[in-house]
């Protein structure tokens, strides 16, 4: 056993219990400090609306109920004159907002908090996080994937693309509100009201139809909506999330890493995705691997007159593994090669080849050999550009379907064994690629280098293999939720 492992094992036994005196003293002082802090926040210069909410939230009273009460009070003090306003002003104003923070209730009357990142180009939602405040559940939706975490069952559902929830979009709603009213035989009216707390003038936009009524309050100065409430009606379509957005804020700084999802330790993962993880691997990551392979060839292997063998291991965010390696085709003829080149026999249910220099996916053709057993194919690389005589082209191949990795019950880490028997003297590289949110928990051999490219970590182990055949093996434990920096 390595000394570090032995010490770690001993340290896990280092479990020191607090004395009763310390426990009581800490609890008492901590609660006193907390109460003082809450009191200070009540007296701080927060806007009256937020000060109220903070107070009632601390007292355990529903935020939505309070805000609804305030909204009703505001509506009571209406001004008769309607200020000059066009709904397009709101649509444009929303486009300029990078992040929207919303607290409200959904159609099942669950209290939710939403953070929405707006795409500045389109004004539409880019990513969002929805926290269900009364449940241990939250959802992160990005343009690439949606992660739905249920804390009760400790389950993560991973889906392709953004969530249906992400169809929620403020700009869309305001841009289409007039059309919506027409479709439903309703109308849109505007009138001015005054917020009794801030004395600021607001606009009330009301869309009334026989079966639906939506009331929005819009800040006259910024033209941004500060609340949206469906006061009458039923869910318009199944994609609707919010029944009312009782608070909408635009200047809250989002917590760091808000839209990054890290799979919690020990979570059950349900994958509802058909997307090949390789499609999401940035070309720059593959380029980096290719450059490393070529550098090893030029700087280390060539002077020694030996081979370089590079094995690739790609662990996706759902802890599925794909393995691959480097291949090269050298044109030893006197003619330019065009069309396709045979690159070997494989049994590739899910074979893929990428150009090592550009990271671009290459076309391949698979031909079943007459003599080969069923399922074994001859692979042809269809060259996208001619290969001149004497030139070499390098490719990265992935040779298998994604395989689910085994999770250890003891510490919930995922175990990966990278091994190979090359059979002659060579420089062998093991390249491990992991996405954001996954880190190395432990390794049997310390890695030689680590690079981070577009959030993906690339770990490299290099070994000079002797002439006789040996098993080159590195065992790695991967952890889904490696500790992050302090806050």
């Amino acid at each position, binding site marked *: 056993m390595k000394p570090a492992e032995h010490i770690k094992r*001993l340290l896990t036994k280092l479990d020191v219990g607090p004395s009763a005196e310390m426990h009581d003293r*800490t609890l008492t002082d901590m*609660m006193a400090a*907390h109460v003082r802090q809450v009191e200070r*926040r009540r007296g701080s210069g927060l806007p009256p609306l937020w000060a109220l909410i903070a107070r009632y939230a601390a007292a355990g009273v529903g935020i939505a109920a309070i805000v609804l009460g305030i909204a009703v009070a505001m509506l009571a003090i209406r001004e008769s004159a309607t200020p000059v306003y066009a709904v397009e002003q709101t649509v444009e104003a929303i486009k300029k907002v990078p992040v929207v923070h919303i607290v409200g209730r959904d159609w099942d009357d669950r209290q939710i908090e939403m953070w929405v990142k707006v795409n500045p180009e389109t004004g539409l939602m880019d990513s969002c996080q929805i926290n269900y405040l009364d449940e241990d559940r939250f959802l992160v939706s990005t343009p690439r994937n949606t992660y739905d975490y249920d804390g009760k069952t400790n389950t993560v559902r991973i889906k392709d693309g953004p969530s249906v929830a992400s169809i929620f979009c403020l700009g869309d709603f305001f841009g289409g509100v007039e059309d919506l009213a027409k479709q439903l035989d309703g109308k849109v009216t505007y009138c001015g009201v005054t917020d009794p707390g801030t004395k600021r003038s607001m606009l009330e936009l009301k869309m009334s139809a026989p079966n639906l009524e939506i009331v929005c309050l819009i800040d006259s100065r910024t033209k941004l909506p500060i609340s949206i409430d469906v006061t009458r009606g039923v869910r318009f379509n199944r994609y609707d999330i919010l029944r009312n957005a009782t608070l909408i804020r635009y200047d809250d700084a989002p917590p760091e890493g808000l839209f990054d999802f890290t799979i919690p330790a020990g979570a059950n993962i349900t994958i509802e995705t058909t997307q090949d993880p390789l499609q999401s691997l940035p070309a720059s990551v593959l380029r980096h691997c290719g450059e490393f392979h070529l550098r090893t060839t030029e700087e280390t292997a060539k002077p020694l007159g030996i081979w370089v063998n590079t094995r690739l291991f790609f662990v996706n965010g759902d802890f599925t593994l794909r393995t691959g390696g480097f291949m090269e085709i050298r044109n030893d003829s006197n003619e330019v090669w065009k069309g396709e080149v045979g690159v070997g026999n494989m049994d590739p249910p899910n074979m893929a080849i990428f150009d090592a220099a550009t990271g671009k996916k290459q076309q391949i053709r698979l031909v079943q050999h007459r003599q080969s057993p069923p399922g074994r194919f001859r692979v042809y690389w269809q060259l996208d550009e001619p290969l001149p005589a004497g030139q070499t082209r390098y490719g990265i191949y992935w040779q298998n379907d994604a395989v689910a990795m085994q999770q250890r019950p003891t510490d919930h880490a995922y175990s990966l064994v990278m091994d190979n028997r090359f059979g002659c003297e060579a420089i062998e590289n093991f390249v491990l690629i992991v996405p954001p949110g996954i880190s190395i928990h432990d390794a049997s051999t310390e890695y030689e280098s680590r690079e981070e490219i577009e959030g993906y970590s690339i770990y490299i182990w290099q070994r000079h293999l002797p002439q006789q055949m040996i098993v080159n093996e590195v065992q790695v434990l991967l952890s889904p939720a490696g500790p992050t*920096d302090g806050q």
Partner: protein
Amino acid sequence: MEDRWLILRFKRGSTDALCRIYEKYERAMLAVAFGLLNDHSAAEDVVHDVFVAFAQSARRLSSAGSLRSYLTTCTANLARDRCRAIRRQARCLDGAQATSRDAPSPLGEVLRDEQLRRLSDALSQLPYEQREIVILHLKANMTFAAIARAQGESINTVQSRYRYGIEKLRSIFNGELER
């Protein structure tokens, strides 16, 4: 994930969430502080101060980071300050350190396991910087990158100190660890 939820509630003023955070991490933080200071009552003081400061930090706290990592970093920072203060005090008192080293420490009351006692004594012989990294990495499961960020050091420095620390522990144990 529970942590994220607890932070959200705590930031909204929930005392229940604060209590749950305390109950959840009290022992772990105490073990880290104890490993760093090798003194039970000093470790208790550190954990007390960490949680009292934490109770006042609701507004500053980000709900996105790792709560365990945050509390561990706070504990390590306070323990480091405490250790410096002890060193200063020891210098002033001339020889007080030797006395305290020789006297039976509260550790003896807490650790019945001889091997653990030896480990703890061995840890206390490491330079503080190395001891801190060994404890944070092996006991608190912090990555080298996270430790480097928390200490404002380069990851290479942190890894070197860790290696030196482990080497020294091995030499203290006279190779016993490799058996």
